[in-house]
């Protein structure tokens, strides 16, 4: 079962992104099948599939769909292609290699939920990927797959548009995304009401991640039970795990949702560069709590990683070898959240900059042991006190790095310098040249 590739089977084939190639491999047959089903039966298959959101929260997709109020129209679908969580680089490959899989997933979802207008919100930095999507959508429109009649047969009009962002991590947060799509700055909204009830332009809106929606054609074609069987318990299917950092074969690997983290790093990603030991692993994007190298023999399934004290999040695995300075690593993570805090809530707006400043001082030998405690206090004051999850996302790395690697922070404070000197970050250029090779994805 573990060899089944739901998402990446066609990656790397010549012209895999074209409509012709997609159709030759059976593309849009699932949409055709869906048109012959009761919409409620499609939703039922997705519920049975145990598909959980691939954007980071891991919320059950079928359940989310049932939150739409029954009698309010229009409804909208928004696909989140804002992929910005450091360590995450999977949705872009779906878009680059198989954009019609996403278009088909959107079409099926819209038919199932009686939605006639869908937007793909893609981060501004993905220029090439936005062009790939626009091309695929234009092909689908020209072929009559979307437009006034879905697949040229069903009396159901459907349009899909690409909306490019302009550089703001916060717009991956679903309510900030909606604000941005409405032409405003990306300030997250207070919830409830949730977007499924009050979303885009005040109307019920389903927001799903690219990878989540890309699974839908397979589920319709093979049935929800078959998808559930690829995974374990209440988590169905496979996932695209991205592995980056100090590994020999960084890349995206499609594996069952419950694949072993250590195996992913040591076997699929080829182990650590130079055969060095693993000091730490961030398992699900930079906001997920860090694990020590001796804590990674775990299943990547959402609940299993949670039980291990972290989050499977967006599936972005970042590997740090034994030479890494954890203070320097955390200082960079803290800088990111300080840069990206939208400024709406005081604890996050102020606290993220405080954390960044204290961490810079610790790294550069200008901080005392008392500052380490102050850093923790600031993190604890942000967590749980903000409108959106960015506050928690900024606090969790700090809390977990201090818990797992406190001795390194104290050592910096006591020595009044970084014991790693200038060598705490990164591979040398020579090692990098040895590692750099063809782009790796899947298998």
């Amino acid at each position, binding site marked *: 079962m573990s060899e089944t590739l739901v998402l990446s089977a066609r990656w790397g084939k010549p012209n895999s992104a074209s409509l012709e190639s997609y159709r030759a491999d059976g593309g849009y047959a699932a949409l055709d099948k869906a048109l012959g089903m009761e919409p409620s039966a499609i939703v039922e298959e997705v519920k049975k599939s145990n598909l959980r959101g691939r954007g980071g929260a891991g919320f059950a997709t079928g359940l989310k769909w049932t939150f739409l109020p029954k009698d309010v129209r229009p409804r909208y679908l928004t696909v989140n292609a804002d992929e910005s969580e450091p360590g995450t680089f999977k949705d872009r490959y779906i878009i680059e290699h198989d954009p019609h899989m996403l278009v088909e997933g959107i079409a099926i979802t819209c038919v199932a939920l009686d939605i006639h207008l869908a937007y793909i919100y893609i981060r*501004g*930095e993905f220029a090439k990927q936005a062009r790939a999507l626009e091309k695929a959508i234009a092909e689908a429109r020209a072929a009559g797959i979307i437009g006034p009649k879905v697949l040229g047969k069903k009396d159901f009009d459907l349009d899909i548009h690409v909306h490019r962002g302009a550089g*703001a991590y916060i717009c991956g947060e679903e309510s900030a995304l909606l604000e941005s799509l409405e*032409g*405003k700055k990306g300030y997250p909204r207070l919830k409830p009401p949730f977007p499924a009830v009050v979303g885009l332009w005040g109307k019920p809106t389903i927001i799903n991640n690219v990878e989540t929606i890309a699974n839908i054609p397979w589920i319709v074609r093979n049935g929800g039970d078959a998808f559930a069987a690829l995974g374990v318990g209440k988590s169905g299917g496979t996932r695209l795990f991205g592995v980056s*950092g100090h590994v020999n074969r960084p890349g995206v690997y499609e594996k069952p949702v419950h694949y072993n983290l250590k195996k992913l790093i040591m076997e699929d990603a080829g182990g650590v560069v130079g055969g060095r030991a693993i000091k730490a692993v961030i398992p699900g994007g930079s906001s997920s709590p860090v694990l020590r190298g001796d804590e990674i023999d775990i299943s990547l399934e959402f609940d299993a990683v949670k039980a291990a004290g972290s989050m499977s999040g967006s599936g972005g695995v*970042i590997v740090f070898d034994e030479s890494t300075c954890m203070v320097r690593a955390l200082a960079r993570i803290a800088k990111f959240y300080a840069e990206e805090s939208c400024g709406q809530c005081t604890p996050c707006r102020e606290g993220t900059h405080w954390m960044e400043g204290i961490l810079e001082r610790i790294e550069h030998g200008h901080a005392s042991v008392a500052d380490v405690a102050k850093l923790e206090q600031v993190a604890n004051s942000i967590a749980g006190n903000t409108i959106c999850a960015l506050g928690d996302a900024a606090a969790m790395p700090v809390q977990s790095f201090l818990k797992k690697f406190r001795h390194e922070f104290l050592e910096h404070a006591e020595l009044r310098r970084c014991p790693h000197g200038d060598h705490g*970050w990164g*591979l040398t250029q020579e090692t990098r040249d040895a590692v750099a090779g063809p782009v790796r994805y899947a298998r």
Partner: protein
Amino acid sequence: MTTHAGGVEGLPREKVEQFDRELAEILKRYPPDRKASAMIPALRLGQTLFGYVSPAVQALAADRLGTSPSRAEEVASFYVMLETHPFGRHLVEVCTNVSCSLTGGDRLYAYLKQKLALAGAGTTADGRFTLREAECLGACGTAPAMLVDEEMYEQLTQQKVDKILGEHP
């Protein structure tokens, strides 16, 4: 809603006409009563045509989208890819976030500062390049990465960076 025949104060007439033509295409993506949703694409278009998102460009976009200049300013100042001040002929943005720095992104940024004779983020004396650090570009598996004029370059080395810069006169 088009109240200005030619354009907003200080903007060249032909470019304003081009803006209006291209904006009309963009607006097809949004319901007719939701024109303000096109604020980001409108400001990006303005940046492409007029060089940067000046107050006059903000006023133009706000006018055409039927909203207030303050709404345009709020958006222009919020998003990092919208430039509210003039910048170099080419914009070079190097990712120094975790996965890129673990594979040498911070060194590349230091190298570029040295090569372009800049102490930090800024524009070269000849106005050719504006350099700055970028946040995660979603290229962690092909790190280190950078954007030049919004096109992404991955698996970078110093030699590759030299070549890429040479292609941007």
